[in-house]
């Protein structure tokens, strides 16, 4: 149970404070309600490139990191398809420095050509390092457009291609800032050795005079229900063949999300899980196999990925996965198996409460979903899932015409 207090500034900035006296540190986490799904299809990768630029100096402060490091703090950020999240960890006595830095870059960036030029290159190297110069690194560049045909989840956060990043212009950067970076589109959480009254005063002081931004009406195309099985085969210079199967599932807020998440745990969480036990251990068909949900805010994907052993034909490996998916649709999961995956959720959430950064990020995320209280309701939402719900949801998700399968076939020449 995480307790917190909430207040909202006149300009729309939502602030949550979570007091924790057991640490001398504090976290300031700012979530901006913008992600790769908000990008123009011809200028993808922009939300993430923009995240890099947020460290390139703001209107009154030429360097972001140096003054923060000087007071014993550090900072980082991440972008995904839904959100951009910035966080600072620093000694609680110096928390005002975090507000000074964050408020100035919320007010306006410096927009220097040098910063844009460098970060275009840095992000291009990130693209190569994580997506191109790795075996299977491009899986999401291939699987997303296969599964999503109209929704912007069809591109990865890094962008569709290197050229979109290379072509980013300063006027795009400025327009993006104007559109998405303002107090009314941000949620700030402060966690650690702080007092709410003091935080309120400081937040008013540094953020109070930042004007609210222009209205942004998110109007994303809705992915139509998939009607046919999709499949793509890539011959690649990878050591092992590999299977990726993606199924459309519910959005993050619906009760079905929790059902699907538990199904993924039944299939692949821990060494007692079904896919690990049956397909990797008993039938000796795979060297690795996993199932997970993407957890995106809009309708997400349920993913199964596996690497069959060299003596197993791809068709047989796929067939074995489908057999397990059919069992889920035909036989109700037993009580103790359901209890098991719920217990794992409970202990995972208890361990997550040991980190002030995790708490701050989670509170901000659930506030974006509608209300930070939802974080404290998570366990009960998982607890409510019944065996019948798992049966129904499995029938809904694991249909051939709801599936997109991507196969990597290993080129044999170098083995």
């Amino acid at each position, binding site marked *: 149970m995480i307790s917190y207090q909430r207040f909202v500034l006149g300009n729309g900035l939502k602030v949550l404070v979570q007091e924790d006296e057991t640490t001398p540190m504090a976290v300031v986490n700012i979530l901006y309600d913008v992600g790769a799904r908000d990008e123009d299809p011809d200028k993808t990768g922009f939300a993430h490139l923009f995240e890099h630029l947020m460290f390139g100096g703001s209107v009154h402060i030429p360097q972001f990191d140096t003054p923060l490091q*000087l007071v014993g703090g*550090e900072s980082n950020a991440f972008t995904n398809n839904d959100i951009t999240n910035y966080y600072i960890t620093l000694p609680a006595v110096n928390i005002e420095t975090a507000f*000074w830095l964050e408020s100035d870059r919320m007010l306006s960036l410096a927009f220097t050509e040098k910063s844009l030029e460098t970060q275009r290159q840095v992000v291009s190297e990130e693209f190569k390092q994580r997506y191109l*110069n790795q075996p299977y690194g491009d899986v999401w560049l291939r699987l997303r457009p296969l599964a999503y045909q109209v929704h912007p989840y069809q591109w990865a956060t890094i962008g569709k291609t290197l050229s979109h990043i290379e072509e980013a212009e300063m006027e795009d950067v400025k327009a993006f800032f104007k559109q998405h970076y303002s107090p009314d589109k941000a949620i700030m959480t402060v966690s650690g050795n702080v007092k709410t009254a003091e935080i309120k005063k400081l937040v008013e002081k540094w953020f109070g005079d930042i004007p609210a931004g222009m209205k942004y009406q998110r109007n994303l195309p809705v992915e139509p229900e998939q009607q046919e099985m999709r499949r793509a085969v890539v011959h690649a210079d990878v050591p092992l063949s590999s299977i990726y199967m993606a199924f459309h599932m519910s959005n993050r807020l619906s009760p079905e999300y929790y059902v699907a998440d538990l199904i993924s745990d039944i299939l692949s969480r821990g*060494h*007692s899980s079904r896919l690990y036990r049956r397909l990797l*251990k008993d039938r000796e068909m795979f*060297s690795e196999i996993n199932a997970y949900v993407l957890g995106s805010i809009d309708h997400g994907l349920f993913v199964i990925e596996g690497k069959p052993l060299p003596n197993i034909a791809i068709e047989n490996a796929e067939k074995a996965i489908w057999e397990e998916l059919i069992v889920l649709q035909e036989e109700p999961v037993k009580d*103790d198996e359901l209890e098991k995956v719920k217990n794992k959720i409970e202990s995972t959430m208890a361990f997550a409460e*040991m980190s002030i950064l995790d708490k701050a990020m989670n509170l901000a995320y659930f506030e974006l979903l509608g209300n930070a209280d939802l974080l404290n309701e998570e366990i009960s939402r998982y607890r409510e899932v019944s065996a019948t719900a798992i049966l129904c949801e499995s029938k809904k998700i694991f249909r051939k015409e709801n599936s997109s399968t991507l196969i990597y076939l290993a080129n044999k020449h170098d083995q």
Partner: protein
Amino acid sequence: MINRSVAPTFKSLETFHLLRPEEIKLDNGIQLFSFNGGEQELVRIEWVFNNIAWKDRVPLLNVALSGMLLEGTTHLSGAELAEQVDFYGAFLQPEYAFDHLSLTLYTLNKHIGKLLPLIKDVLQNSIFPEKEFQTYCRNNKQTLSVSLKKNDFVARRLFNQAIFSSTRYGYSPEIADYDAIERADLQGLYQQQIRPENCLIFIGGRVDTTVIEAINHEFGQDSWGRNAADIAKNKVEPYSFDAISTALIYEPKEASLQSAIRIGTRTIDRKHPDFSYLWIANTLLGGYFGSRLMSNIREDKGYTYGIGSGIGTLKHSAFFTIATEVGADVTSATLDEIAKEMKRLREEMVSVEELEVVKNYLRGTFVGSLENVFSHVDKFKRLYLADVDVNYYQRHFEIIKKCTPSDVLETANKYLNDEDMAKVVVGKGISSKKGQG
């Protein structure tokens, strides 16, 4: 109106509070260190065993001991064991490190009583079934074949070999090595290494006497059925390392978009009085986001997504390393810039302002790294296993406070001479006549 151009005033952290453990001896002599703290009803318990070199087999055997530890006992199959651990929502993780094998349990307090007997069974009665052993070797060969396609992974192997030569630290498994290890050796190693005389227990979280009593009941009563044995003869001897070759080791990978670079050397460890100074110099060079390597090679030139340097400490050695992955076309340019930055560190006095940033950053992040009771256990464990006294962090913190620019210059000249270091490049962009590794 507030003046946004002026930074708020700040304080430098002057002190920190480090938890000290309660030291307990179990009835059979096992040393247990207990840290009671935290708000949640949960604990982390670690059983740590020094590695031993069984019959001079390759260290892959020790890796396999960790990988196979949960695959079955005389009472429970691996499947049954996994089922129970998962049912109680626990996490049970064996881990191999260069000097130790550890088994770590994360659990809510309410399930401890159910879990400890399982762990006792694992530590006393594991049988390493042949079928599971075959699966383990087969699947790890597959995983290794994927990793060997990653330049960064290959560079790390070549680097370890370059600085630790033919010792156990310099070893990296080849795929064929999996065919050479045998189950009988695994059983022999288990009997010798996993025994009370070679066991330490570290526990953190909500610890009370019932937890300690339960641990003593399961692990403190006897010799775990082990025969008396001469552990000493299997101990890893102090290592003797070869001189480091400074010629560039270059492994070309023509299809690469990026090259992985590693530069470094063996260095001093925490017992050496200069260690904290080296820690500071390393931070300045490549140990934080504002470091010189990051500022120059990422933030100014855009050659890489990230570059960093670090110091690792082992029981019988320590090492300094710079690591990055850079665009193939700027591989040589990056090597030149790294050399330039190291030369600058040795020849030019760092400004008081830049050093101040590093010193305050180190103090802040040190205190920040003591986030919860587990971090306190980790800090203590690191010192205890390296045989360093508990006042080390106090001295470290004081040295950070008083370190001067001339201290940094002197330290860089003593320990950060890139001409004496091993250099590894895996990828593309080095002309062939340079690659004489």
